[in-house]
């Protein structure tokens, strides 16, 4: 199998990551519209981001439950080594953002 970063996108983890991105977009825009209708408040960008992550997590929950109930392995969260560089950088930025907004805001 192609072990490069682009090659790994065809692996199950790449397909799952793609599905999670789609779920996040649906959460941000579809969820945002639903949020406005239910609560009568226009969603800010922070609200949309939270809805996006919430939708992605809920999709991961449904997918994992579905696979387990079918007797299959849960979603394979093994990260390909070729992703380490991107993930390391993203993780450091995310943690810095979380600490920064929690402590310094």
């Amino acid at each position, binding site marked *: 199998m192609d072990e490069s970063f682009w090659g790994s996108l065809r692996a199950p983890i790449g397909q799952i990551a793609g599905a999670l991105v789609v779920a996040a977009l649906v959460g941000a825009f579809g969820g945002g519209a639903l*949020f406005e209708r239910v*609560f009568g*408040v226009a*969603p*800010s960008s*922070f*609200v949309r981001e*939270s*809805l996006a*992550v*919430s*939708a992605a*997590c*809920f999709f*991961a*929950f449904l997918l*994992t*439950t579905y696979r*387990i109930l079918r007797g299959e392995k*849960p979603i394979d*969260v093994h990260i390909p*080594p070729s992703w380490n560089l991107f*993930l*390391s950088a993203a*993780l450091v930025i995310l*943690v810095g953002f979380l*600490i*920064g*907004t*929690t*402590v*310094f*805001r």
Partner: protein
Amino acid sequence: MKRLKRPTLAGTAQAGHTVIHVLVVIAVAIAGGLLGWLTLVTRNPLDCVYPGAEALPDPPLFLLGVVSFFAGHILGRLVPEERTRATPRSRKWSRLAMVSVFLVASAVFFFEAVGTAEIAVGGPGGAKLEPITYYVRCAILHDKAQISGGVFTWGAIALTFFIAGHWFWGDRPVIRPRAT
């Protein structure tokens, strides 16, 4: 007479791995117990305005989080040479944990969305929900001003960031299959 085994690098890694994983479980149990106890014995503050509101931002707290995160990352190198196979029971619990984490994370981020929009509970005039960061800051201020002078906060930050760095970004050595 029984000969003592000479310590090896692999043996040291195995021992370090065991010690870290036992200590983390004990620390999480203690921290969880303390937090539960504090929830029962302390009164919730009506708001987070303290005379010493300069308690935040707290640069040393930020530094502690960063150091703990990288400590967890680096200590990820301590892995046993021979990985043990998961038992069926262990596999069942890990699947339950995985499903629970996704469901709870989904609920938490939905709460964050509602909190960020500052929606009043029970209609106009009701108590407003706040973002999770507000409650974190409130807990830190409350701990510093009235509970432990910040000891619980330091412990919680160190433990949380150590676990995050160790589990999500552990510097695990890549075990390559031997060439035949």
